[in-house]
């Protein structure tokens, strides 16, 4: 077995009685873009800080190419980092900010100049070299921070919610920039965010954190299409949960009874459930349809509201047993009137796209 590039071993961090990180274990291959996703307080930043050396873990280890980082002070770890807040040195010009890591490493002047020029070209800020950080926009400042963090060719780049202070448009612009830079440099990136769209957009793999533990790790597709827990299903993408009762598994698919008594067949059986056990059936909004197809399950609902979004339509409905449903079926002009008029009508979904979790 080959040595993983970066390895987190049973990392635990306790603040007094509160344990922020519970024995997190994780291997990261070289060149991967891995995102720590999770709500605030889930331990993702604490894990990142332990790698950066800002906090000593209570126990566990962090290994880079087989060597423990923990006894090495931050300034000798040779790790790059971009922070949530703009942490450019306010008294230094953009060029001097990027040059800073090289200057403290006493690199020759010629090399510093060349590298600064390369880095500013990489983040497309060649024309801003002499500006002070205060004269830059938030997005530009984060790009300088990125250039500074990459200037010394660190093997790992840590990013702690670097886009959270930017508006949506800038965020998307810099996301594209980060993807390009990851492609061009091949640096291993550990990225922390609480924004699932950002995580899906950027990452090779996502580690979803919950209460100091990794709930599930995998590609965005894994987490979206094959969530292993209700938390993952609820956190990634939008979900509708219907109260259900597990009946049996036939031929690899499960049969459940919904609260209104209707039976749904052909649900993927991922969890072991007892007959008669209370369960929750999760259906993605876009899995709903307004017209039945083969094998579809149907729900009798009251339509509360509809809206038209071009490629999709939003339908807010309530089942007879009171579960609210937020459905995003594909729009189809022929269905507009029927939806508007609907009362006590049926909507449909593909049970194979639904997930069953124990309640």
């Amino acid at each position, binding site marked *: 077995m080959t040595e993983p590039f970066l390895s987190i071993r049973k990392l635990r961090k306790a603040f007094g009685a509160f344990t922020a990180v519970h024995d997190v274990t994780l291997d990261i291959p070289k060149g991967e873009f891995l995102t720590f996703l999770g709500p605030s307080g889930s331990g993702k930043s604490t894990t990142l800080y332990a790698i950066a050396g800002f906090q000593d873990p209570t126990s566990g280890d962090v290994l880079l190419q087989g060597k423990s980082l923990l006894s090495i002070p931050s*300034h000798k*770890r040779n790790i790059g980092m971009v922070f949530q807040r703009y942490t450019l040195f306010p008294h230094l010009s953009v060029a001097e900010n990027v040059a800073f890591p090289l200057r403290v490493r006493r690199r020759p002047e010629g090399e510093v100049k060349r590298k600064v020029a390369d880095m500013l070209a990489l983040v497309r800020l060649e024309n801003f070299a002499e500006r002070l950080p205060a004269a830059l926009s938030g997005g530009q400042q984060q790009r300088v921070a990125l250039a500074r963090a990459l200037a010394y060719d660190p093997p790992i780049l840590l990013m702690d919610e670097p886009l959270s202070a930017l508006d949506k448009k800038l965020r998307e612009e810099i996301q594209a920039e980060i993807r390009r830079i990851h492609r061009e440099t091949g640096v291993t990136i550990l990225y922390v965010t609480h924004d699932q769209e950002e995580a899906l957009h950027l990452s090779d793999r996502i580690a979803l954190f919950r209460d100091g533990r990794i709930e599930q790790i995998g590609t965005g597709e894994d987490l979206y299409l094959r969530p292993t827990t209700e938390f993952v299903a609820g956190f990634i993408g939008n979900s509708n949960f219907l109260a259900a009762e597990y009946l049996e598994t036939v031929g690899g698919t499960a049969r459940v009874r919904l609260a209104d008594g209707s039976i749904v067949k052909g649900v993927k059986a991922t969890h072991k459930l007892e007959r008669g056990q209370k369960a929750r059936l999760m259906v993605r909004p876009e899995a709903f349809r307004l017209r039945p197809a083969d094998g579809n399950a149907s729900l009798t609902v009251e339509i509360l509201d509809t809206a038209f979004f071009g490629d999709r339509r939003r339908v807010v409905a309530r089942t007879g047993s009171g579960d609210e449903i937020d459905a995003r079926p594909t729009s189809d002009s022929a269905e507009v009137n029927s939806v508007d008029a609907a009362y006590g009508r049926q909507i449909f979904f593909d049970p194979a796209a639904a997930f069953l979790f124990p309640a």
Partner: protein
Amino acid sequence: MPVQAQQGIASPRTSAGLGGLAPALILIGLFFVVPVLALLLRSVTDPVAGLQNYAALLGDGTYARVFFNTFLVAFVVTIVTVLVAFPVAWMLAIMPPALASLLFSIIILSMWTNLLTRTYAWMVLLQRTGVINRALMSVGIIDQPLPLINNLTGVTIGMVYIMLPFMILPLVGTLRAIDPMTLRAAALCGASPFAAFRRILLPLSLPGIAAGGLMVFVMSLGYFVTPALLGGTSNMMLAEMIAQMIQSLLNWGLGSAAAFILLVVTMALYALQLRLVGNSRATGAA
């Protein structure tokens, strides 16, 4: 400050505020501006009209010595105060709140205690047979009492003591305004603690150090009580000389002229200090 607060609906924007300022302006005008201007006038009219008082002050070696001595003391006091205050302010800015408020209380107690009380304590502590000399001798570091009072050493110790709070308190503000993340970033960039201090922390605190240092310097230049009590006759400072010229020698012309020189230097440095503070606010570094 909210901009709206300036534009009340009930009171239209007028010069009404001037009415409220009237008592203060009358007080300051009548009992501050007029006396100081009269003093200035006296410096060029007493005993006869002309600039002879200034010529005498600037041309005489004895007075030149006092000027030099004043600047020397103010300079030494400023340097020592900055060096002592910085580490304390640094700790105060980041230490746990309970510890910080204890330290703040000590600073406030020292600052609010009567000036003469503090100076009296130093007179007793520093005298030939004082506690400090005895302690040093009993430990065996010295075998003769050190001359700690009636000289530059005494003045420096006493003045640094008085000035420390004026340096520490604003510096804490400067240091608290620096984002600790900036220094974490510096560390990850590879800066050793020393490099991070020299290249980041120190430059970022410089506006506060400069502003506080200048304030201490200006205050020291015109200080009267402590140098008069802890200093010696051979290193008299300007304020004491002025007082003597008026009180003992009754030489109003010369005293006024010396006072006016002190006023001009003080105000010039103060204006510089205001500019420094203003600039550091503008760049957001302080």
